[in-house]
């Protein structure tokens, strides 16, 4: 049954113009068919004698079904192939829907198709009594490791790739058992004392660590250090950051500088009995040098810088610090310091004052938290806000707790009403 249109699936034989035994020329009409789209004649695909009609008039069959067979090795006037002694040699070769010289279009094409379809190469999933990640199972299989023996440091004691690699490195890989080996394991017994000579060799502290240590101890022994903490809603700044692309720090710095204008006794130094307030803010920014230590370069006249300017200055100083490019002038003369370990996720800290300054502000991680907010009519609701703690250590010799709290409140107000 020929395909009369893409969506046609079946057809009905209306009339056979030729009967078995009749001679038919190629392209001569052999039958009439009817489909739900069209009624049409069907031409013979080849010359020969009609050997058999397989679908009777009135029968409906699927597209691709052979309707009749034509014996192509017959000659006009010769006996019908089926009547000859040598039973059908080549007569069955020609089917009405597809002569032998054309490939089968209606058949299953899966084989050729599957050779070209885009496909990945999924690996076999292995299962075990505990659940391990694919890479862990692969490494274990490659090295014959019993994963039950590996201690996991991941969430809920999950064995991670570094765990199995460490196990491997420590010689934990079990060799394949020989037939003389039993599962017996000796009792480990009490732990032995480690001989002194096995103690890990000590390293002298770096010069920077020594100097940081001295300064920190001096600060804690000299200043009457207290820490006050306030909570601030950074949601407005979070939105603004989208526009500016800046980090949190320049915002806090700018707000702190403005608040210091109102509370100059925090922008000050105390040396011995001498207390000095400053008009300009020389803002120290603590920069971590990784394991190398910590350094506090100073942005001079920070009150003259816009938030973008502060952002740029902080970035510049941090880069200089990490590249060991700071000059002595870059780290001198600070009047107030901000330290910012917030990038690591910690939420509170009690910083150590950078003497002879009288206060240091610590900014911590900004995290989304549900908080109660009160609208102008006094209605309470719970909202998801960007919240942070601002922790300030201050020197009780120079000021009192109320002033520290007022300063932090002013700072918070600036941050929360950011425009």
């Amino acid at each position, binding site marked *: 049954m020929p395909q009369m249109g893409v969506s046609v699936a079946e057809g009905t034989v209306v009339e056979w113009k030729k009967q078995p035994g009749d001679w038919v020329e190629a392209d001569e009409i052999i039958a009439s068919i009817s489909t739900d789209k069209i009624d049409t004649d069907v031409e013979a695909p080849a010359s020969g004698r009609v050997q058999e009609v397989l679908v009777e008039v009135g029968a409906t069959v699927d597209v691709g079904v052979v309707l009749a067979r034509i014996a192509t090795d017959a000659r006009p006037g010769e006996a019908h192939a089926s009547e000859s002694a040598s039973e059908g040699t080549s007569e069955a070769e020609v089917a009405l*829907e597809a002569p032998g010289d054309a490939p089968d279009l209606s058949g299953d094409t899966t084989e050729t198709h599957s050779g070209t379809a*885009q496909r990945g190469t999924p690996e076999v999933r292995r299962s075990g009594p505990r659940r391990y990640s694919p890479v862990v199972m692969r490494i274990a299989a490659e090295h014959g490791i019993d994963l039950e023996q590996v201690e996991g440091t991941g969430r809920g004691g999950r064995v991670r790739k570094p765990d199995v690699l460490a196990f491997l490195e420590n010689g934990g890989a079990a060799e394949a058992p020989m037939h003389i080996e039993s599962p017996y394991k000796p009792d480990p017994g009490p732990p032995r004392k480690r001989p002194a000579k096995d103690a890990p060799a000590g390293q002298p502290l770096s010069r920077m660590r020594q100097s940081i240590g001295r300064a920190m101890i001096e600060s804690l022994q000299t200043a009457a250090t207290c820490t006050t903490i306030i909570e601030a809603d950074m949601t407005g700044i979070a939105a603004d950051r989208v526009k500016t692309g800046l980090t949190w720090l320049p915002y806090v710095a700018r707000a702190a500088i403005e608040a210091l204008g109102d509370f100059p006794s925090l922008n000050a130094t105390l040396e011995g009995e001498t207390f000095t307030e400053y008009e300009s803010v020389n803002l120290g920014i603590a920069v971590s040098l990784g394991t190398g230590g910590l350094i506090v370069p100073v942005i001079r006249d920070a009150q003259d810088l816009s938030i973008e300017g502060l952002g740029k200055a902080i970035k510049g100083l941090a880069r200089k610090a990490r590249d060991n490019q700071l000059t002595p002038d870059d780290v001198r003369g600070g009047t107030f310091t901000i330290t910012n370990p917030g990038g690591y996720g910690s939420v509170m800290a009690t910083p150590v004052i950078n003497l002879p300054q009288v206060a240091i502000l610590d900014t911590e991680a900004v995290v989304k938290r549900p908080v109660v907010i009160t609208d102008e009519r006094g209605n309470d609701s719970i909202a998801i806000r960007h919240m942070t703690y601002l922790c300030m250590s201050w020197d009780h010799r120079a000021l009192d707790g109320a002033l520290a709290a007022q300063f932090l409140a002013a700072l918070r107000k600036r941050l929360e009403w950011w425009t």
Partner: protein
Amino acid sequence: MATEAAQSGTSEVPPEVSEHLTTDDRVGLLRAMLMMRGIEERAMTLYRQGKVPGSFYDGFGQEAVSAGPAWAMAAQDRLCILHRDLAAHVIRGVPIERIFAQYMGREGGITGGRDGNVHFGDRTKGCVGMVSMLPDMMLIATGLAMAFKMRGEARVAMTWFGDGSTSRGDFHEAMNWAGLQRLPVIFILENNQYAYSTPVDQQFAVNPVERAAAYGFPGVEVDGNDVEATFEITRQARERALAGEGPTLIEAVTMRMHGHAAHDDMKYVPKEQVTEWQAKDPIDRQVRRVEALGIDVAAVREEVKAAIDEAVAAALESPMPDGETATDRVFADEPALLEDGNAPWSGFKGGA
């Protein structure tokens, strides 16, 4: 009209409409149309025999719409050809066996089996193949013409599209752009009365040929069943384009004498309409012209049939494409651009 047409269907010789055609040209136009009809009839037979996958489209009765305009184009001109314009491919010199191989999805087809039926264009003959969204090609032709103008070349681009295409936005975008930049492009609206089953009175409120004025260039109507008339009007449009006067919209009025595709029995077309247009058959008309010149048309027919027989045999020798190659050739490694096609008109050889 119907009565006149029926009467003219006897032996009256159509009037002279172009003084630019030699006897050879007139026979050439007839040969191209006979070839188109012969190829499509044979392909339909192959289709019924199950040798042509997918669907099948033809341009029975519309042969003059592609043959005449294509005859007027020079080798370096460019054509974007539609699915009822097979004569244009023939005139540009596409080997007939490749056309049959194309229908059958074989390796030897113009697209190597990657696209079917008349969805093809032989880039080595200066032709861009159509896509199913027909007016898309109006923009491609406009872009080709834009390149000619940018480079200061005396060349013309031409495309065909149907009455249904005039409803699409690309029709407007192309006409507007071409008018604005006065590009050397010829738009041939092949009005065959039906877009699939939708008649023209359900397609537009204003005859599209009138819309050309809104884009700042002429729209002209021509008898789409008179191959010498379609030649002549295209020749004039080409002259205009070369003179820098911009595009022309030609509406070739014709009739689709078969269904939209092989499965379509056209039961939505009134019988009288078919009868009326049968009397206007473009091949019969050109046969009368050519016979009046003393040409042996039977010999031309024999020659065409022999060429088709040979081509079909050759196409059947072409293998089906290897399934392993189906994912090849998505991207080009090197540029492969349009090249020049055949231009058989005597006017290009200093004749006429």
